[in-house]
């Protein structure tokens, strides 16, 4: 037991949710003055550990926890704060419409009643940022800052206070940072631990983990797989620990390929050419008629942003073209008119007409076909809705029922039906099976396959690898905003995909906007 020098020690921590054991007597020790990485696949229990530390979950009986030398009560937010644990979550928790300084002085310790002095707040904020080597205007609105600056603001905010924190816990802080910005952040973290702070760092990016962390704890299926020094660890060994099996031979096809064997003329049906946007750093992609192209990627890789960029929901630079005709960026109407139909991931927020009926949700994208002489025909519309209810096998079979009263799977089928009614050439689906039961999942797979068999090009972005493998003819892996690899045929297995997701990416020359934003700290 190196208890004396441990910033945080957890002993046999377990957590069950209902019948499921999410954490199974996990040990974790973060020494003082080290950067400790916590890694594992989705569902391995990383987030559960963070939530236990933060007090969002209460652990099962029989665990012990220490911060420094003192026992620590897991599962209490106030205890976590009092013990000196500071958190920066992936969403950063900043208030966009407030200035940097206001975000710094939001915590209750600033005093509820004592009048706040804007000038003092700003100068203290500026000093705290400068200690980290950053020059960010404390009077700037958070919404006007770049992703990198926001991350820095969130971290420095977590660290500043009356006394230095015992442990800084970063939950995927680099998910949305381009490479050079992440490097600057890491430099700041290294300075922090030199001043005897400690960092627990959760990341998907194993190259970062290898480069930054002093030691690594690997979780697998809720159990401790290993805790080692990062120097003793190779990248492949780390992936093996996370997956719990030896690595398969490297996938035969890696790196984007240009297929020439298509039956749809000289130009591919869909071309995505050097698209830049949030989390996208010059992504290019091509897809041909009848293809189902899966898009895989870790959180923050750009996978979540690709469909919206192609579907015209978000405004991006670069070009998306169908049969060589470029689409207007950020204009879903133009995309639909050119034959590209898009289903967003946030079904309830972005796809469903909440208070409307199934019928209205189904027909909204194409009302002409249910009109007679420019007049909507209720009769035609109902007939159309009933036909589609049969085709999609929606239950209950009731076209006048409010859409929100259907299950998630049935709602998703209706959204798909809405798109299919427009007879799209390209179908872009973002997380089409999220929050959907098994039966509906199979039905949605069938619909995708039917659409492809009918000549449509389908792009499926999903965090569910099984899903991708089942429906896709090939899967592209997005890493750091570009296509990093492509798998088809026999190489298209969950194992290969998992490995490709975790493979380090050569950082492309991204358009870092960091010039002038940072200066190396002279006083730290």
């Amino acid at each position, binding site marked *: 037991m190196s208890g004396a020098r441990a910033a945080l020690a957890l002993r046999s921590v377990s957590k069950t*949710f209902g019948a499921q054991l999410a954490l199974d007597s996990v040990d974790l020790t973060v020494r003082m003055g080290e950067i400790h990485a916590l890694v594992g696949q989705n*569902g391995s229990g990383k987030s559960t550990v963070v939530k236990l530390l933060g007090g969002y979950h209460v652990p099962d009986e029989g665990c012990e926890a220490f911060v420094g030398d003192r026992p620590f009560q897991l599962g209490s937010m106030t205890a976590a704060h009092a013990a000196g644990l500071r958190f920066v979550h992936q969403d950063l928790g900043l208030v966009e419409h407030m200035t940097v300084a206001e975000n710094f002085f939001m915590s209750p310790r600033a005093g509820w009643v004592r009048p706040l002095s804007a000038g003092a707040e700003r100068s203290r904020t500026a000093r705290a940022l400068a200690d980290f080597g950053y020059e960010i205007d404390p009077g700037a609105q958070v919404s006007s800052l770049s992703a990198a600056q926001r991350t820095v603001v969130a971290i420095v905010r977590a660290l500043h206070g009356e006394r230095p924190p015992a442990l800084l816990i970063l939950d995927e802080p680099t998910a949305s940072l381009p490479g050079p910005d992440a490097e600057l952040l890491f430099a700041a973290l290294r300075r922090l631990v030199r001043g005897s702070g400690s960092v627990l760092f959760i990341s998907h990016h194993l190259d970062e983990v290898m480069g930054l962390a002093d030691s690594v704890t690997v979780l697998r299926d809720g159990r401790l797989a290993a805790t080692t020094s990062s120097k003793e660890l190779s990248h492949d060994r780390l992936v093996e620990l996370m997956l719990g099996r030896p690595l398969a031979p490297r996938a035969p096809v890696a790196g984007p390929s240009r297929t020439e064997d298509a039956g749809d003329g000289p130009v591919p049906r869909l071309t995505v050419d050097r698209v830049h946007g949030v989390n996208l750093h010059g992504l290019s992609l091509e897809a041909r008629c009848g293809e189902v192209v899966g898009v895989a990627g870790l959180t923050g890789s750009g996978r979540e942003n690709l469909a919206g960029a192609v579907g015209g929901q978000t405004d991006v630079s670069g070009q998306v073209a169908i049969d060589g005709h470029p689409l207007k960026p950020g204009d879903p109407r133009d995309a639909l008119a050119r034959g590209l139909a898009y289903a967003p991931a946030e079904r309830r927020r972005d796809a469903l*007409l909440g208070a409307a009926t199934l019928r*209205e949700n189904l027909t909204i994208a194409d*009302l002409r076909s249910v009109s007679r002489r420019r007049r909507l025909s209720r009769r035609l519309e109902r007939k159309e809705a009933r036909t589609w209810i049969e085709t999609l096998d929606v239950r209950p079979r009731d076209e006048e029922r409010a859409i*929100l009263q*259907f299950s998630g799977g049935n709602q998703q089928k209706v959204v798909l039906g809405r798109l299919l009614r427009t007879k799209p050439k390209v179908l872009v689906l973002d997380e089409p099976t999220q929050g959907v039961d098994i039966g509906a999942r199979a039905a949605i797979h069938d619909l995708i396959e039917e659409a492809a068999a009918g000549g449509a090009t389908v792009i499926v972005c999903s965090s569910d690898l099984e899903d991708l493998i089942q429906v896709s003819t090939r899967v592209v892996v997005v890493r750091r905003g570009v296509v990093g690899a492509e798998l088809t045929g026999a190489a298209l297995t969950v194992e290969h995909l998992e490995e490709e997701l975790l493979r380090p990416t050569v950082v492309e020359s991204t358009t870092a906007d960091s010039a002038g934003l940072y200066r190396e700290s002279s006083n730290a």
Partner: protein
Amino acid sequence: MRDRTGLLGMLSPRRISVVYLLVVIFAVFSITIPDLFLSSITLQSVASSQAVVGILAVGALLPFVAGEFDITVGSNMALSVIIITSLSNSHPGVGVIPMCLIAVLVCGFVGLCNGLLVGRFGINSFIATLATSQVIVAVALKISNNQQVLASLPHAFMNLGQGRSLGLPNGVFVALGLALVVWYILQFTKLGRHLYAAGFNREAARLSGVRTRPVVIGSFVASGLIAGVAGVVYVGQVGTFSNSIGAPLLFPAFAAVFLGATQFNFRPNVWGTLLAIFTLALGVQGLQLSSSSGGFWITPLFNGVALVAAVMFSRQQGIRQAQRAEVSVDRAEDPVNRAEVPVDEKTTSVSPLTEDVAATTPDSEVSRR
């Protein structure tokens, strides 16, 4: 609980609470003050006084369907009135019809300004139209010099405005005609469906190929034009501008739109709106006739209480409905995966309350970002 289409479902108090309210009002006053209440004069006075309110409500309904408030309708109507009355004095040669056209077009322009503020510049519609309504008031006061202005219009026009057909004041037919047109648009045209879609979920509508911005702007233009027509009818009935007209009509018009949205199909609709106007006015009339002291204070009291009570009633129903829906919606139950998948809890779990509000008030937050 689904919206039953059968006869029983149609008659459920949930769907047509205002009809029941109307029946109760009618029954109570027929018994308590039969002589006063059951005379045809009562009905006529209600119809005549409410024609202008009805027109305003039909106008305000359009932006409301698209999820926006237009609270300029009252002052916009007053602007129309002052334009006609002052033109009739200063330029009597222009002719009645061009005068009315000018007034209506100016009101339409005000609507366009509202629409641009909301649709183009993304200003919350409540704030934007609150502000423009003050600007309009200022213009009206400037033109009128803060005096009463008597219109000097041809007798033919005034006779038409104050006359009756089929026993009803002519203004009522204007209201009904506009209501018919708006009903047809909302119910049977692509435009109408797009208006509703923009109101239900602006982003989903946009992603479904609806031109949400022009649709919203257009709804404000239409609302402005209709407020202008309300001004024409008002001039025909009263013939005078005074600085107190307009604003007092805003509340009854909006109350009717809100109340109407709780009727029939739980969304803003034309006939629910008109029914609400008639019911509220009849209730006010009955109370005023019952009161010995004149009861000038009854109108706002009754309108306010009836609005809150009726909306609360349908809201209760709406909450129950939404809760039931909540249960049936599939959820990813696996807590581990839920924790790992980056789902934004704030946006995916919509509370039943917000759900219901969407049916009764426009959720202006939805899309403008």
